């Protein structure tokens, strides 16, 4: 299963998920991963993630397929949680398995950076006083654009 995509309201067990990548492919010398979790920030008591069923999964699959082709990965994984979650809970796990570390590390950076701007998810912060939608960050747009430029340069 080269692409493993899941969007679900169930809690993510990051350690269990990563154990599905390690030790399974004799050709792979590297497994890299990123785990995003809810940060205690200001008066946040919970974070809520909304997505667009079907379209979000298709966007994640497209990113994984691009990463697999570009870095010759044997596996690319994105599991993203939706719904309401508390401080410290896992929001997303991105992982890549490859023959060498640079490919695995770059693929994970690509996947999380592009996920933030290309996959339809929206975050809402809940506080004791009420709730508000998280605004997109310019730094996230810049990180995603970095990969577009990289790929355009290398493909030129």
């Amino acid at each position, binding site marked *: 299963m080269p692409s493993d995509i899941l969007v679900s309201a169930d809690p993510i067990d990051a350690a269990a998920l990563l154990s599905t990548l390690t030790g399974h492919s004799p050709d792979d010398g590297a497994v890299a991963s990123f785990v995003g979790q809810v940060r205690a920030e200001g008066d946040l008591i919970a974070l809520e993630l*909304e997505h667009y069923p079907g379209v979000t999964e298709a966007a994640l699959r497209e990113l994984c397929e691009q990463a697999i082709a570009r870095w010759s990965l044997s596996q690319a994984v994105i599991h993203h949680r939706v719904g309401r979650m508390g401080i410290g809970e896992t929001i997303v796990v991105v992982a890549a398995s490859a023959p060498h570390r640079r490919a695995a590390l770059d693929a994970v950076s690509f996947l999380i950076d592009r996920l*933030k701007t290309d996959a*339809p*998810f*929206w975050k809402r912060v809940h506080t004791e006083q009420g709730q508000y*939608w998280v605004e997109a960050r310019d730094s996230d747009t810049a990180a995603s654009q970095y990969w577009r430029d990289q790929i355009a340069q290398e493909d030129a």
Partner: protein
Amino acid sequence: MQIRIRYMASLRDRLGEGETAHDLPADVTDSEALIAHLTRRDAAAAALAAPEIRLIVNDRIVTRPSALEHGDRLAFCPPFTGG
């Protein structure tokens, strides 16, 4: 031409919940003309004209401007903030 529209996340709070049907005048043939049409009926819809607002048509993310066809299902989306 009739289409259906819904608003995602913060846009839903400003412009309304649920999917609504719209009968469009003949001169409204793309997404930008649609936004102008919606803005004439509700000034708050002017927010849709911002370039960072994304559009999903029939479950596919499209670039604006996007031509409209009878029966299209549109979702206007604020910038994505996942991860």
